């Protein structure tokens, strides 16, 4: 379809991926971009573009109807809380279908196979099973809803990127902060599969999804298709910092052993903290306060319902305190989420995207890293 003459509606437009989508759509010369904005105060990056800032909330259908306006193309990057991913996506789909939208690009994630995708999940036809992680499971459930709308006639395309990186990405900015604070380790030799997806490569795939009718009603893994390990990703960022930060190796056994030793709530991951909070001893200790358990549970549900990037940001914020442990010469112990993220051996295959979409990653890892470096300098990280 000729999307270049269409108004494009972008959800998640104040985020890292959606922000770049808005830029690319302007660069492609579409007549108008309408950007769904939930928190106006977060819109500084896209407010500099001649896009229409449309206030709205994925959880309020009427606001979506108004925000969509006459747009016939939807690029759905919006997430929100993990617990409302399905509802938000369904609202957007319903509004899009009623408005006669011609193409709906759904940005899913390879994490539907879990934070640590198991061997066997390399290709799109691998069976999905519950992972126990709210974000992963809800993103998986959202895909099913998207496909249902696809069957009912809405032209949908699902993209499953993995570690989406590039300028403005927290994967780089947080890593820079963590490297400077001594809060990075090579987990299991740093051999875990990173599955980088440079943000512009992902957007190339979105564009192909708009153009290619053969892609309808299908899901595609989208990565840079280079076997970049987490060690490679970390080392590429280390190389930007002077003096070069020291990063130690840590085995998963060491991480486990350290967790067993730790008893404080702030030690280890937020997951571990919740485990402690749910433990018998802890609850007995606080038995006199009947609300505590409910409050703890509520807090934990809230944290686990956040998408990984937000959880990571939260972790990083609380993690600052753990940096103190580093100064006492204790070995840095990564939290459970980082360990899980960096422990997969699976490199997702983009063969289907190549074949059906005609996708070929345009930005190589080394080139992407150069662009990230330029941006990090601009953004005063270097």
């Amino acid at each position, binding site marked *: 379809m000729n999307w270049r003459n269409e108004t494009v509606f972008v959800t998640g437009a104040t985020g890292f991926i959606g922000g770049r989508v808005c830029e690319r759509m302007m660069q492609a010369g579409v007549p108008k971009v309408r950007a769904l904005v939930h928190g106006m105060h977060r*819109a*500084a990056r896209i407010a500099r573009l001649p896009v229409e800032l449309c206030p709205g909330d994925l959880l309020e259908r009427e606001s979506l109807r108004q925000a969509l306006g006459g747009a016939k193309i939807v690029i759905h990057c919006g997430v929100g809380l993990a617990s409302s991913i399905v509802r938000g996506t369904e609202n957007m789909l319903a509004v899009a279908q009623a408005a006669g939208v011609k193409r709906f690009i759904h940005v899913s994630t390879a994490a539907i196979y879990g934070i640590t995708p198991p061997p066997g999940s390399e290709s799109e036809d691998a069976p999905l099973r519950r992972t126990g992680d709210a974000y992963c499971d809800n993103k998986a459930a959202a895909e099913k809803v998207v496909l249902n709308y696809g069957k009912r006639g809405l032209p949908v395309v699902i993209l499953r990127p993995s570690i989406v990186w590039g300028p403005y990405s927290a994967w780089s900015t947080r890593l820079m902060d963590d490297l400077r604070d001594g809060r990075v380790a090579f987990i299991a030799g740093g051999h875990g599969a990173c599955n980088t997806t440079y943000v512009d490569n992902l957007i190339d795939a979105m564009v192909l999804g708009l153009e290619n009718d053969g892609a309808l009603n299908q899901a595609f893994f989208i990565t840079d298709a280079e076997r970049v390990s987490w060690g490679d990703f970390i080392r590429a960022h280390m190389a930007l910092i002077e003096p070069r930060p020291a990063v130690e190796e840590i085995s998963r056994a060491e991480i486990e052993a350290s967790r067993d030793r730790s008893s404080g709530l702030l030690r280890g991951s937020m997951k571990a903290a919740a485990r402690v909070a749910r433990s018998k001893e802890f609850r007995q200790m606080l038995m006199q306060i009947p609300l505590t358990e409910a409050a703890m549970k509520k807090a934990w549900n809230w944290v686990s319902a956040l998408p990984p990037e937000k959880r990571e940001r939260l972790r990083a914020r609380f993690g600052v305190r753990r940096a103190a442990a580093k100064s006492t010469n204790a070995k840095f112990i990564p939290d459970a989420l980082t360990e899980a993220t960096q422990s997969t051996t699976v490199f997702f295959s983009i063969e289907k995207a190549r074949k059906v979409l005609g996708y070929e990653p345009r930005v190589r890892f080394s080139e992407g890293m150069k*662009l990230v470096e330029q941006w990090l300098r601009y953004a005063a990280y270097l």
Partner: protein
Amino acid sequence: MTEPIRLAILGCGAITRSEHIPAVSAHPGVQLVALVDTDLPRAGALIRNRGLSCRAVADYREVLGQVDAVVNALPNHLHVSSNMDCLRAGKHVLCEKPLAITAAEARSCTEFAEEKKLVLAVGMNRRFAASHSLLKLVIEEGLLGSIQNYDFQYGGAFDWRSASGFYFDRAQAGGGALLDFGVHMLDSVIDWFGPVSAFDYQDDDWGSGIEANLFLDLKHAGRFGEIPGHLQISRTFGLKNRLLVRAAAASAEITVSDPEVVVIHRAIGGAPVSQTLQMENFSGGSPYWRQLDNFVQSIANRGKPEVDGWQAVRVLELIESCYAHKRRIAEPWTEIGAESRAGSETSSGTGGSETRT
């Protein structure tokens, strides 16, 4: 003791809640008569929550007969018309920055206030931070030696929860980071180093007129000779958030986190040392309280306020010149989108380098 000045605050947005109400409540020379907001329940809730004994009014014209002066904290695009209405009714005005979204409007407002012999003060709260006057003294007394240059940076992820969200609308805000925050920085550097004789301005506006990042190189031609300076503002990422004045004998630093002191850096016998200067006997209260106090004193003495309309006009004229001669900041990481991909995606009017002037 003279009668307190009867005052109305126009606009119940973020700055009124966080600064103007506390300042007005703490000032004995002022009696708050009304909070004005088209969202009447918002004004009413604010009165109840803060335990104020004043009226909530939807239209400022209703209260002009009962006040001597107003604090104007309406969205930017409404400043001029409301200022003019208030001045026409014979009321003194303390207007939040920017005084107007164009220099011409600021000028007509200022001229009208002069004609009516009314006080028109502009809300440049940073002028009332102790560090502002302190640095002025340090420079004037020659404590630093001859000044070489300065570097002034302010940046952070934009998080101003404006009640109306007008900040990102060109027609309502009048501009982006330069007009919003640059007015403070430019007002300060002109007050310290003298009028601007040359500038080079770049920002990251792709066509909305609401830049998020900017670089501004300036040359001042004041009584200390020619002083070059560099300003950087960001609404998307953190910067050093400080002013550093480099001079022959020492450098002086003001940080955003501690606007009450000036830190002098120099070497003694080759060893780098720093010294923190602070004003003794500096009047208490927040910079907003001091600004209000200056307004009140100006009304009582029929004198000029610390920041009058003409100072706002010269800053707005400079900002307009910057916007008129802007160049696009190079963002090479975005140029990938402007490349031709399989002959389909081509560079367009908003993204390609051809838009740079």
